[in-house]
Structures are given as C-alpha cells and as structure tokens.
C-alpha cells in the first residue's frame, strides 16, 4: 500500500475553536488541509515546505457557504470552486469576474475539491481567484488563539507561498463589499497550451466604477508576474478621474497608457511556462482587453 509520505496524524475537528487548539499545540507540525489538491501533490513530489506531518481537516467546520448581506457577500473559506462558479449570487456585474476566474481554475473535476480558501492560502503567484478578489476589494476574516482579525486581501500575500497568516490561524471567511452602481469587472488568463489544466502565463483582473462618465475608482490586479498576485496601484491611480467613453480612441489611449504603467510595476521571471520578456509584453495586451470589457460591463 502506498502512503502519502510521512503523514502521521489526521484530525477532524468539529469547530473552529477546536481546530485552532490543535494548530496551537506546542510540539507543532500541524497544517490545515481543505481540498488537499495543492497540499497532497506537493507532498507526493517531495517539493519544499512539507515538513508538517499532522493534518487538520477543515471540511467539518461549517465553512462551506455563500451568503448575502445588505452590504457584502460572505463566502466560507472551505467553499469549493465549482460552487462559486455556479452561484447565482455572482451573476450580476461586477461580481461576474469571480465566476470567470472560477471557470478558468483547473478543471471541472478538480474544482469539485479545490476550495477558495486553499487557493488564497497556498499563495501561489498564479492563484486565479486572488485576482477578481483583489479588484473587488475583498476582506479576509481570520481566526486564531487571540480571536478574530480582518485584513484586506491586498495586504495578505507577502511572497511566493507566503501570507501573513500565523501557523495557528485559520482563514474562515472572504467578504466582498458591494460595489457602487455602474461598476464592471473582468478576469482574463493567458495559458501556454490550449488544455484546461495549466497555470497562467499571465492572469489579470480589472474593475472600473463609473459616475457621470468619469472613472471614480479603478482596480487593476496582476498574477504570475511577481512573487504573488498584486494590485498595480500606479496604473489604478492614473485611471482615476479620467473621462471614459467606450470604443473611442481617447479611451483606448488611456487604457494603453495604464496598461503600460502596470507592466512597469510587474517583475516577472523566466520559468517552464514562459520567459520574463514574453510575460512583460503580454501584460499590456491582456490589460487593454480587460479594461475594455470592464468599461463595457460598467455601462450595461
């Protein structure tokens, strides 16, 4: 019988408090498992960061839900990605960008197990769902031995496979505030091959909020072109207060300039999927398309 290397214990807590208790025990070596679609293959191939041998399963903590309140959407961290993709809650602009990213994530089969919390906490530079959530100003709720904290997703990632989460903390909920009327968002992903199973060469999301023809807020997020998914804030600032009219040369020129600024904020590397130079060239191409879609959606 083959065994996943070195897994020594598997705990199935029933409450968040119990799970935190397990994570906070001295002799640590505990790590959370949600769907396991990232954690398990990483162990199989003996890649780095797999020194922890006691798994704590979060599937029994009641963290699989999508709820709506007056001013936000609340998503439980253990919600699987197919549930997100098929949720009627996100069928209106600008939240459709969440569905676009969910459908671009891996495959129908994997998405039955892969969770939103796992996608964010593994903090891959390629994480697809991070991008729409960055442009929608998502807030994360984390619980640990010292109680509950909230943090903007924008401040969550600190490096490749590295977040601000302490080993004894759990991401419990993702909150998406309601955006102003006339907001549009889009997610876009460039992959190396035309098969569904591939991480992005470049992935990006944008969100534009328009009032009386003027851009009152712009969000531009990039993935796979830096140590973690991030917002291109110089490009965002450039877009603000600009008059935007769809399908005009003036607006296209503004998008081009913003996309160029965003590319300067990226620091891609060469890897098996693409060279840094190719990634850098693709950023403005993808962002111009994405901004165009977001503008169109904000007006419809």
């Amino acid at each position, binding site marked *: 019988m083959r065994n*996943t290397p070195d*897994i020594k214990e598997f705990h199935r807590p029933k409450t968040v408090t119990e799970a935190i208790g397990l994570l906070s025990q001295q002799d640590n070596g505990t790590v959370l498992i949600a769907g*396991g*679609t990232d954690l398990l293959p990483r162990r199989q191939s003996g890649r780095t960061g797999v020194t922890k041998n006691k798994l704590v399963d979060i599937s029994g903590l009641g963290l699989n839900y999508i709820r709506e309140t007056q001013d936000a959407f609340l998503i439980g961290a253990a919600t699987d990605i197919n549930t997100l993709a098929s949720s009627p809650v996100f069928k209106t602009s600008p939240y459709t960008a969440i569905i676009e990213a969910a459908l671009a994530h891996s495959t129908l*089969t994997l998405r039955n197990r892969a969770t939103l919390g796992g996608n964010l906490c593994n903090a891959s530079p390629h994480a697809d769902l991070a991008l729409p959530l960055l442009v929608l100003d998502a807030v994360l709720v984390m619980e640990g031995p010292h109680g509950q904290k909230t943090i903007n997703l924008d401040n969550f990632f600190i490096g490749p496979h590295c977040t601000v989460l302490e080993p004894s903390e759990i991401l419990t909920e993702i909150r998406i505030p309601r955006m102003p009327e006339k907001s549009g968002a889009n997610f876009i992903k460039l992959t190396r091959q035309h098969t569904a199973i591939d991480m992005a060469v470049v992935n990006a999301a944008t969100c534009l909020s328009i009032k009386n023809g003027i851009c009152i807020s712009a969000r531009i997020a990039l993935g796979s072109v830096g140590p973690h998914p991030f917002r291109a804030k110089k490009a965002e600032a450039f877009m603000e207060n600009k008059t935007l009219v769809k399908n005009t040369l003036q607006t296209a020129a503004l998008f081009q300039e913003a996309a160029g600024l965003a590319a300067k904020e990226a620091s891609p590397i060469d890897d098996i999927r693409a060279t840094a130079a190719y990634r850098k060239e693709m950023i403005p191409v993808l962002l111009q398309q994405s901004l165009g879609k977001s503008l169109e959606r904000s007006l419809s």
Partner: protein
Amino acid sequence: MIPVRININTEWREILVEPGERLIDTLRDRFLLTGTKEGCGEGQCGTCTINFNGKAVLSCLMLTVQADNGHILTIEGLQDGLDLHPLQTAFLTESAVQCGYCTPGMIMAGHALIKDHPEPDDSLVKHCLANNLCRCTGYEKPIQAILKAATEMKEKSHD
C-alpha cells in the same frame, strides 16, 4: 490507524486506514476495485476519476480519511448484474476504447456530468473530459459516446 466508514458501490464498509492512505490505494489494494487506474498520481491525467457524493473527483488526490461518511461509486458499481451501464455500452459501440486505460476515468467523469446535466451539449462534455488524458483513442469518440449515453438514459427514463 483511523476508523472510517465509507459507502462503496452502495455497500457501507468500515475499515481502519493509515492517516496518509490515498483513496485510490484503499479502493485498489483493500477492496480490489482495480478498475480505477493510477496514471500520474498528481491530478493531471484523470485515470483515477471516481464519483464521490455524486461528483467526479480524482482518487489520487484524496486521502481515504477525507472520504469518511461519504458515498463512492467506481466503474465496478455501474453495471447492473450482467447488464452494462448505457455509458459502458456506448463506449463499446462508439469504439471509444483502444487500450482502455483511460476509459474508467472517462466514464466516471461522464457519469457525474449526466447526473447533473441530463442533456449535455458537445462543449459541456469537452469541459467534463478536460481532466482526462487519452493516449490512443483521442477525444472525439469518447465525447460521442457520452453524448449518446446521455440521450439513451434520457429516453429510458421516459419509458
């Protein structure tokens, strides 16, 4: 060892498993359900696809402990006595099988799809098979087989 209770092909089973034991190994080595195949062992090829609580999942990327209290259906559970399931028949009549290594995974992916979408179209079937690699038959015939089975199952349900 950890006690788990799993419904496998309609029968509840209680077993003790290692914490790191993969579901595919439990199925193949403990229950001799060797219809489920291992290809890559890391989520890419889909030969290990089974149904867990009605959804297609990869049994190489699940620990058996994660399946506790759940319902599993494998290729062996599709047949009704000596009668093949319409999906199995369609794979034969459409010549969607050459070496057959990918076939159980494709059929189980198709099975979960038809349950949720009794009238899938071409594009949906392609998405459904996106996690299933085939190195000999190709994809056109498996896609046709799943579409055909869906039609037959629909007709049967109206009988």
